[in-house]
């Protein structure tokens, strides 16, 4: 598993390594925050630990490739629009299709497991992960597939720090999505989702359509995973595009979930950025001669171990009340 992180700082002449570290870290953290948030939303609403989140990411990224570069749908019918708008329409379609796949997976594989032990359900998602990831990888093939982002490799050079256009867009998109999720949780469906998270049976007794909430939660999770998959597959992360290792990014977002607390959405965001910045710092300040290759890839897990020793339920998680 390669780290896949291209560090801009090494190219910066006279730039501030610290500022560059922060920019890289925030950009990477945004990817983790999106993944962690989707993971937590699925966990809260449906009580499923979703080990298939990596597969959803890979699938989403592949769908982006398929819709943006192979099918060009619906862009091919929007010839009056500029090229970037066509691309955006394609990508948005891909996100929606990814969300539908999320709903489908929940419906087929996880709905029969409602009410079973959490552990058994978690292992079902491990099985789903293997199935979906294998089929996606067969579609992707052995060569990386670029997503054809219209902003390309362009970089804003401020002198003391260099920011890629994709990073700017990514951070804007992440903030918009964060606000959208916050607003959603205050909407009628969002309140129903929070009620479901609190107690599925009671929510049902109050007239909440719990099955529909499950679908919505998986749709959001898969949507966010697809967005993260897209931004992981563009410059300066992996400019070559989507390949068979893209799905593994989710395994590096798991520590973010645990650091923030399994059942805390703000925690997921905090954890995501914490892991992103820690990884970026390891990338810049820790040389391969000192700690070998791939160290940034495990920084998140080391950070997680430390946090768990201090707070077994993460920074913002709810301590489990143990009753006999």
């Amino acid at each position, binding site marked *: 598993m390669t780290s896949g992180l291209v560090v801009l700082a090494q190219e910066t002449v006279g730039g501030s390594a610290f500022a560059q570290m922060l920019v890289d870290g925030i950009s990477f953290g945004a990817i983790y925050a999106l993944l962690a948030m989707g993971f937590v939303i699925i966990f809260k609403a449906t009580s499923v630990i979703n080990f298939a989140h990596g597969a959803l990411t890979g699938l989403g990224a592949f769908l982006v490739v398929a819709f943006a570069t192979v099918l060009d749908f619906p862009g091919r019918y929007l010839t009056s629009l500029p090229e970037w708008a066509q691309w955006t329409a394609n990508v948005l379609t891909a996100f929606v299709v990814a969300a539908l796949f999320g709903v489908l997976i929940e419906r087929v594989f996880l709905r029969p497991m409602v009410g079973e032990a959490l552990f058994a359900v978690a292992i079902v998602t491990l099985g789903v992960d293997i199935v979906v990831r*294998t089929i996606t990888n067969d579609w992707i093939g052995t060569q990386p597939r670029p997503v054809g982002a219209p902003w390309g490799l362009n970089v804003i050079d401020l002198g003391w720090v260099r920011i890629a256009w994709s990073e700017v867009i990514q951070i804007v998109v992440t903030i918009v999505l964060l606000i959208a999720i916050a607003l959603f949780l205050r909407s009628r469906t969002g309140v129903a989702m929070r009620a479901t998270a609190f107690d599925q049976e009671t929510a049902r007794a109050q007239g909440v359509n719990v099955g529909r909430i499950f679908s919505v939660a998986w749709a959001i999770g898969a949507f966010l995973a697809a967005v993260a998959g897209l931004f992981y597959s563009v410059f300066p992360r992996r400019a070559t595009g989507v390949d068979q290792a893209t799905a593994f990014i989710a395994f590096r977002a798991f520590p973010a979930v645990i650091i923030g607390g399994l059942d805390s959405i703000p925690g997921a965001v905090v954890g995501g950025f914490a892991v992103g910045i820690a990884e970026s710092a390891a990338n810049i300040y820790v040389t391969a001669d000192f700690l070998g290759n791939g160290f940034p890839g495990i920084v998140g897990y080391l950070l997680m171990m430390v946090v768990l020793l201090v707070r077994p339920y993460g920074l913002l998680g709810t301590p489990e009340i143990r009753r006999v």
Partner: protein
Amino acid sequence: MRGRPLLYTSYEADQGLLNTTTKKVMLGLFLLVLVSIPFQVIPGLSFLGEDDWLRLLVTTAIFAIGALGLNLLTGLAGQVSLGHAFFMGVGAYTAAWLGGPADGPLLGLGLPIWIWLPAAGIVAALIGVAVGPTAVRVRGLYLAIVTLGLVFIGDYVFRNWASLTGGAQVGRDFPPLVFRWWKEDPPVIDFTTSSVWFGVELSGLAKTFFLLAVFAGISTLLAKNLQRTRVGRAFMAIRDRDIAAEIMGVNEFAYKLLAFGVSSFYAGIAGALLASFVTRVIPERWDLFLSVQFIAIILIGGAGTVAGVILGSAFVILLPRVVQDFTLWLQSVALEGDGLGSAIANVFVATTPTDFGLVNTFAGVGPGLSVAQLNLVLYGLLIIGFLIFEPLGLFGIWLRIRNYWKGWPFTY
């Protein structure tokens, strides 16, 4: 107690290993078949004695040893662990360090097998107990992700510790299964070359098969005994309700640590044996997929049952081979060209590189899954299917068959 086979008048009889005649007969038959396999004497089963199948059976035995350990931890004590592959790696590299050649380019002391094999288990168990306090402090699903972290951290360490592991994608040779008294002594028993035992010529593979069958047998007996005693009952109490167990006087912390230690011991032994058997292993071998395979074994076999672990190991290890043979057979049917069977087979397999088929045996081209990918998909679907439809696994299926015949011709 003639005619009342299930009437027990003492706890000893109730807890007996072979408490029914059926169990005795079936175990005897199983052992008979096992011993006869390398000699290829049973018609219909003689293919199992061929070298490639024998290798798979040896692998099955090794995986069964590892899975017995995970079964104690997950099936009995109820602690979800995805870190089994890490402990297998620890065992394998302990074996390599102690048993590897002393004059080679990599770390090695050249010690004999009776030191490196137990040491592999002990070191893995010690590391298991060392990470235990973190693992015991977190519960349930947090634990699954902590142990997931172990696999990734282990993967990083193994890839970078090149003087021990040979380095990423390179790997190293592991000490062979040769029994000597001391470093350079002539081998007492050599499991890699053929020799004559009791007047019978046996290949190295056949001898390895017998060795691993004995090891698996001992491991099974130990696991079964652990399960039947105070420790096993304490594990099950913790699994069923940890607070209730504590109230009953089970020291939760100590028993969880013990479960981690014992499970890691089994994993270390299995890792050392596996590495030694395949001789050359790259550090990436001890990855998450290996852990998932073990989870699959105990779930498919039936969590918490020793017989299920053996069934599950055989299922998980032999399945890829069966699928491969089946695919090739389907392909040959499809190539015959006419008839209904051929038409059906044609949908499933590709007959030429560009032909459509759900499975495509031609390397890296066209639509369709390769056989390896098909196997992965089947793994996944089997895990899902068993959990949804038969949570007790193969053992549960056996129970239903048994109970059906027990009451036959009545349905209950």
